[in-house]
């Protein structure tokens, strides 16, 4: 599986950390040594055969990879195309997030770090981080917006049971952006012994690239599995939801340079793109700098970051990863804004049609299917990024 680590060509990050005009490392000097240490070592660490062997072994035996590529017959019939679901919801801990945390904890060990700090929105990244910290015996601190701690309570309980300390982020909108601020402050205060496991393809270079590489196993498997099932490696569409964009980056990675494959990214429109309660970054944002990278960012005319809104805690973020900003900028990706209502309906729909309850984040990807103008010969892969157990109270309140 060596190819997981091979850089793509035209959508690959530059050595300064840019994707087109997006990316870079806009960090205060306090973080420079940490980020620089990571930048200088991540490719080397990841290329080491011993690292690869350990990473692959854990993905197989602990995470449960490869995850199935499932032909969703009833959904296919409904949308009028052939739809496959890439079952990241079947990963240990219930979402794709663990592909990244397994990789990063192995990097942290090789850098000699004793403690892990992370941010979380839906709690899936927090749980995935707490899980690998338990596995490796490292101390774990997770920052989570106080509003998210309420709406994703089961995940707070899971993190605590796994031995992590969950700290509420009480500033700003008390969601993912603020949890990220707090995690960065924690890292500034503890630069030597702590590694920051970012949960998406955001943050200063090399994080977006490192996280995308760890998640790229998703598209690597899709290609093989699709070939085995259909005799073709390339679907017509790959669809994924974008919070920061890690499941999308993983699902797109090995198709970035296959122009025949349309890459479809879905963002959370909340109550509607122009409602003032939205997280549809590419529809509402402009280029700016957030959490260490230049990207597309929801902000006021004065450059203050706007508080996003989505029913889904994992998509409630005012930016997107720089790779996705570049895909948007170049037209390589199609971006859809999906409202709370459409996402919730798509979540109920999949549950009844296929017996799979998706995470509300994931439901935003499914909701794009009827909007894509699909034709019967189209082959579509949807990245089913996570399962909906954590969202049951939101689903049932909505009914």
């Amino acid at each position, binding site marked *: 599986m060596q190819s997981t680590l091979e850089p793509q060509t035209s959508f690959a990050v530059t050595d300064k950390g840019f994707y087109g005009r997006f990316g870079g490392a806009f960090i205060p000097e306090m973080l420079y040594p*940490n980020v620089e240490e990571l930048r200088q070592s991540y490719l080397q660490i990841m290329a080491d055969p011993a690292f690869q062997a350990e990473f692959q072994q854990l993905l197989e035996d602990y995470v449960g990879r490869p995850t199935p590529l499932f032909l969703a017959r009833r959904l296919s019939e409904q949308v009028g195309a052939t739809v496959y679901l890439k079952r990241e919801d079947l990963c240990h801990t219930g979402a794709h997030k663990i592909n990244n945390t397994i990789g990063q904890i192995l990097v942290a060990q090789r850098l000699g770090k004793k403690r892990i700090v992370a941010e979380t929105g839906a709690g899936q990244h927090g749980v995935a981080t707490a899980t690998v910290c338990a596995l490796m015996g490292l101390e774990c601190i997770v920052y989570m917006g106080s509003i998210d701690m309420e709406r994703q309570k089961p995940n707070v309980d899971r993190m605590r049971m796994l031995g992590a300390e969950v700290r509420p982020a009480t500033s700003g909108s008390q969601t993912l952006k603020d949890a990220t601020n707090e995690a960065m402050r924690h890292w500034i205060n503890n630069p030597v012994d702590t590694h920051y496991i970012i949960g998406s393809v955001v943050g200063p270079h090399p994080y977006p690239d490192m996280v995308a590489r760890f998640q790229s196993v998703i598209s690597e498997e899709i290609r093989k599995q699709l070939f085995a099932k259909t005799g073709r490696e390339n679907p017509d569409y790959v669809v994924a939801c974008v919070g920061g964009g890690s499941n999308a980056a993983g699902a797109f990675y090995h198709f970035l340079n296959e122009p025949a494959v349309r890459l479809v990214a879905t963002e959370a429109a909340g109550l509607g793109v122009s409602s003032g309660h939205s997280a549809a970054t590419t529809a509402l944002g402009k280029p*700016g700098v957030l959490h260490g990278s230049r990207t597309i960012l929801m902000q006021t005319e004065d450059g203050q970051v706007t508080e996003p809104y989505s029913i889904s805690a994992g998509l409630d973020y005012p930016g997107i990863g720089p790779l996705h900003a570049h895909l948007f900028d170049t037209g390589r990706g199609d971006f859809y804004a999906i409202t709370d209502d459409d996402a919730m309906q798509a979540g109920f729909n999949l549950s009844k049609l296929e017996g799979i309850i998706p995470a509300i984040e994931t439901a935003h990807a499914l909701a794009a299917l009827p909007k894509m103008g699909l034709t019967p010969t189209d082959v579509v892969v949807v990245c089913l990024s996570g399962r909906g157990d954590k969202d049951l109270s939101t689903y049932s309140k909505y009914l």
Partner: protein
Amino acid sequence: MTSSITRNRITDLFAQKGDRLLNVYFTAGFPNLDDTLTILRGLQAAGVDLVEIGMPYSDPVADGETIQQSNGKALENGMSLRTLFAQLASCRQEISVPILLMGYINPVLQFGVENFCQQCRAVGVDGVILPDLPLDLFLAEYAETFRAYGILNVNLITPQTSDERIRHIDAESDGFIYMVSSASITGSTKGISEPMRAYFDRIRAMQLRNPRLIGFGINDHETFDTACQYANGAIVGSAFIRHLQDHGTSPESIRAFVGTIRS
């Protein structure tokens, strides 16, 4: 290498006075939107050597709670770069201390870097501190514009900054180097520890070409005094914000605060 900015109020100040310089930070628009000139006058009358005006930002990642809250309040009060420059428009008729603007890069990018430098020059701002604008990006994209308008860009170093990088920063800096006292965000009240002294000593021994001011965690006479033993002076921020909050912006209040720091 860059030192093509020959003179401004900051370089003049350091040419005249080499030690015990006091630089005080406050957030523009805090406690009230229109306090900027009142506080500037108060600080000048109290004899501070430099003033740092914070440009409030929604997501100040390098700042602790005190400055986070003052930023939040200032934004609620309606502060923006446009308003700040309007408030400073005629300040140089009465204010002669060097003025720096400190803040995060995004509001400056949205304002436009050239427009920003032009406004700084027009109102008499001498230097800028943008912690999340790394030196290499500054040099590649903005140094020329800053230089064209005679605006100094002040860079930070920390206890973790390598000697090699410090040399590089020193070569590319004009005015002074901002020494972050410890691995920390702003607002610490833990005092100055032995490892901090060792770091101050190490930097002093490097004999940099730029003067140094120590900031972060300087909050009373004792910490100010200690910092002055190792550098040309120190920067006080959070402690002043707390003082403004509790004791107001009157000249007496500000004089009293500066008095407790100086002696």
